[in-house]
C-alpha cells in the first residue's frame, strides 16, 4: 500500500530533475502508468473487502477504492493531456523549461496528496491531506506555469479562503476527537474504522457542533455555495489539465471527507440533521451557480460554475440519503469526473486556438475543428444533463430519491435550477460550436496554423476520445462492475 504513495513522489523528483522538457512529459506519463498498474490490484481488493496497512493508519474500503480509482484515472488523463498542452505552450513561448519541470513536479505532488486523502483511516490525517492538496494546487495555479497577475490573484484567493475554511474543519475534527475520547479513550479515537462502530454512542450535541464546522470547512474546499468564490477564479486561471483535476477530483476528495463525517454523525444525531444541512447547501449551490451560468461570458468560468452546480447535486443526493440518493450521488461523482475534465481539456485546446476565454470570441468550432468540436458537443450535452448522456442518469437517480421521500419542494427547486443550467450551458457552448468561423468578435489573432501531428497530440486527442466514449457508454448503461462498486460504497456509508 505504501508503494503507491512512493511512486508519485519519485516521479515528482524525476520530473523536476530532468533537463529535457519533452522527456519530462513522458517520464510523468510513465510515472502515472506505473501508479495505475500498481494501484489496480489494491483498488479491486479494497472493493471486495477493506484492507489496511501501517497499524491501521491507512485503510481502504470500497469508497476509498472508488475515489482513488477516479483520482488515478484522472491523473493519467491529465498526464497524457499535459504533454501536448505543454508542448504547445513551449512552442508559443508561454513557458520555459523551468516552468515545465516545476509544473510536472507539482502535478505529481498534487496526485500524492490526493492519494493520502483517499487512503487515510485517521480523520486528522485526512485533514492533513486535504490541506496539503490546497497548498500544492495553489502553487500549480499561481506559479506552476508562468506567472501572470491574474493567476496570482486567483491563487491568493484560493489559498486564503480554503485555508481559513479548512481550519474550521480542523476544529470540527478536534471536537469529534473530544466526543469519541469521552466514549472510548484515546486509542484510535479518530480512526474511521473505529468511529464507525461507536458512532451511535457519541454525544449528539457535540457531534452536531462538529459536523457544522466540518461542513463549513470541507464545504469551502468542495465548492459549495455560499463559500464558492475561490472556485471560478482558480478554475479559470489554472492551466487546463490542472483545472480538469481541480474540478474533476479535488472537489470530490473534499466532499469525500464530508461523506465520511456524515456516516459517523448520522447515527449519532439522526439522519435528518445532516441530511437537511446538505440539502440546503446543495440547493443553494445549484441555485447560485444556475444564475451565474446564465449570465456567464467566459467559458472556463462557465465550466467552473457548472462544477459548483454538480457538487450541489452530489450534496443534494447525499442529503436526501437512502440507498437511492447516495447511489445517485456517487454515480454523479463519477459522471462529473468524466464529463468535466473532458470539457476542460477541450476548452484548453479552444483557448490555445482562439487565444481567448470569451464566449463571444469563439465561433464555429464544429466547422473549423470537427473532432474537437464534436467532443465539446458531447461534453456540453452531457454537462447540461441531456438524455441519454451520463449526467442525466445520475441526476435522474437523485431526483427519484427525492420523489421517493416525498420532498416535493426540494424536487421542484432542483428541477427549476436544472432547467436553467440546461439552457445556460447549451446556449453558451452552442454559440461557440456553431456559426461560421471568423465571425467572432475580436478573433483573428492570426495563428490559425494547424499544428504538426506529434505523438503528444495524438495521445491527447486519444484520451479525450476515450473520455467522450465513456460519457456515452455510462449514459446508456452503467457497466456492471461500476454498479457493483457503487452498491458496496452505499453499504459502507451505512445507508438503510
Amino acid at each position, binding site marked *: 500500500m505504501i508503494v503507491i504513495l512512493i511512486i508519485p513522489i519519485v516521479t515528482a523528483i524525476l520530473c523536476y530533475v530532468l533537463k529535457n522538457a519533452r522527456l519530462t512529459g513522458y517520464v510523468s506519463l510513465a510515472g502515472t502508468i506505473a501508479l495505475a498498474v500498481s494501484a489496480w490490484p489494491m483498488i479491486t481488493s479494497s472493493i471486495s473487502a477493506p484492507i489496511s496497512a501501517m497499524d491501521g493508519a491507512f485503510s481502504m474500503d470500497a469508497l476509498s477504492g472508488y475515489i482513488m480509482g477516479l483520482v488515478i484515472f484522472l491523473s493519467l488523463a491529465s498526464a497524457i493531456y499535459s504533454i501536448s498542452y505543454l508542448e504547445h505552450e513551449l512552442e508559443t513561448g508561454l513557458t520555459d523549461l523551468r516552468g515545465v519541470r516545476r509544473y510536472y513536479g507539482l502535478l505529481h505532488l498534487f496526485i500524492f496528496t490526493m492519494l493520502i486523502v483517499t487512503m487515510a483511516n*485517521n480523520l*486528522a*490525517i485526512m*485533514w*492533513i491531506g486535504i*490541506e*496539503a492538496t*490546497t*497548498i500544492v494546487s*495553489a*502553487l500549480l495555479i*499561481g*506559479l506552476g506555469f508562468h*506567472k*501572470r*497577475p*491574474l493567476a*496570482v*490573484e*486567483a*491563487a*491568493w*484567493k484560493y*489559498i*486564503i479562503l480554503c*485555508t*481559513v475554511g479548512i*481550519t474550521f474543519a*480542523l*476544529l470540527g475534527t*478536534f*471536537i469529534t*476527537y*473530544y466526543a469519541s*475520547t469521552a466514549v472510548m479513550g*484515546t486509542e484510535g479515537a*479518530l480512526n474511521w474504522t473505529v468511529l464507525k462502530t461507536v458512532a451511535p454512542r457519541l*454525544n449528539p*450535541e*457535540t457531534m452536531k*457542533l462538529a459536523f457544522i464546522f466540518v461542513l463549513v470547512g470541507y464545504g469551502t474546499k468542495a465548492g459549495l455555495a455560499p463559500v464558492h468564490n475561490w472556485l*471560478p*477564479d482558480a478554475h*479559470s*486561471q489554472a492551466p487546463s489539465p490542472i483545472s480538469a483535476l481541480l474540478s474533476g477530483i479535488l472537489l470530490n476528495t473534499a466532499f469525500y471527507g464530508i461523506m465520511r463525517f456524515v456516516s459517523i454523525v448520522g447515527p449519532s444525531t439522526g439522519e435528518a440533521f445532516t441530511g437537511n444541512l446538505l440539502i440546503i447547501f446543495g440547493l443553494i449551490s445549484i441555485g447560485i451557480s444556475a444564475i*451565474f451560468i446564465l*449570465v*456567464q461570458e467566459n467559458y472556463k*468560468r462557465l465550466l467552473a460554475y457548472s462544477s459548483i452546480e454538480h457538487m450541489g447535486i452530489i450534496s443534494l443526493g447525499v442529503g436526501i440519503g437512502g440507498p437511492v440518493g447516495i447511489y445517485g450521488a456517487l454515480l454523479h461523482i463519477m459522471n462529473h469526473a468524466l464529463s468535466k475534465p473532458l470539457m476542460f481539456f477541450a476548452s484548453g485546446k479552444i483557448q490555445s486556438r482562439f487565444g481567448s476565454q470569451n464566449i463571444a470570441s469563439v465561433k464555429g468550432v464544429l466547422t473549423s475543428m470537427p473532432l474537437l468540436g464534436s467532443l465539446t458537443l458531447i461534453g456540453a450535452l452531457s454537462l447540461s444533463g441531456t438524455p441519454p448522456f451520463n449526467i442525466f442518469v445520475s441526476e435522474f437517480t437523485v431526483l427519484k430519491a427525492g420523489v421517493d421521500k416525498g420532498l416535493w419542494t426540494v424536487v421542484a427547486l432542483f428541477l427549476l435550477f436544472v432547467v436553467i443550467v440546461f439552457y445556460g450551458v447549451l446556449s453558451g457552448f452552442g454559440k461557440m460550436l456553431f456559426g461560421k468561423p471568423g465571425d467572432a468578435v475580436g478573433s483573428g489573432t492570426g495563428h490559425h496554423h494547424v499544428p504538426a501531428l506529434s505523438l503528444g497530440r495524438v495521445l491527447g486527442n486519444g484520451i479525450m476520445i476515450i473520455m467522450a466514449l465513456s460519457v456515452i457508454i455510462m449514459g446508456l448503461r452503467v457497466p456492471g462492475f461500476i454498479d457493483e462498486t457503487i452498491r458496496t460504497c452505499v453499504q459502507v456509508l451505512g445507508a438503510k
Partner: protein
Amino acid sequence: MKTWIEAFSIIDFISVGILLTAVTLNAFKSIESYVKAYTINSWLLSSLIAVVAVLVGETHLYVAALLTLATKGILIPLFLRRIVRQMRVTHEVVPYISNSLSLAISGILVAVVYASLKEGIFVTGFSRNVLQISIAVILISLFIMITRKKALTLVMGLLFMENGLFLAGFSLTFGMPTIIELGVLFDMLMGVIILGIFAVQIKRAFASADLDKLTVLKG
C-alpha cells in the same frame, strides 16, 4: 510545582495573555508589531502546553510544547520577518476602520463569546476559561482579517486564528497524538511559506500589496 501552578492559576494567566496579544492587533500600525505580537502569542501557547504537561505528566505534551515553540515560536516569525524585509512594504497596516472602533468591536466579540459559551457543553476541568478565550481569539483574528487591507495582515490574521484553534483543540482534548500534531504543524508551516511567496508575488504583479487591487476576477 503542581500546587504552585494551581495556587497562582498560572493557566488562566497564560491564556489571558494569549487573548491580550490577539486584542493588541487592533491597535498596532505596523506589520512588524504584528509579527512581534504573534511571537509572544506562540510562546505563551507553547508555555501553556508545557504547564499542562507538568500538571498531567504526559510525555507527548512536552513534545507538543517543543514542537509548537520550534515552528510557531521561532521558524514562522523568522520567516515572516524575512518576508517583511523582502517586500520593503511601507510597514503600514491600513485598516478599513479606525483603531478605536476596531478595538471596541473586539471587546464586544469577547463579551459575546463569554455570554454564549457560559453554559457550554464542554466545561471540563482546567479548560473552562481556555475554551472561551480560544474561541474569542479565533473571532478576533477573523475580524482582523476582514478589516485590514494588506496581504500580509491577512496572513497574520490566519496565523492568530490557527493559534486560537490549537488552543481550542488543546483545551478540548489535551492535544492530539504527536504524529498528527506534527503533520498539522508541517502543513501550517508550508501554508505560511507559500502565502508569503504569494504576498511577494502580489506585490510584484500589482505593484502594491493592497488587496483592493485584486478585483479583476469576479462574476
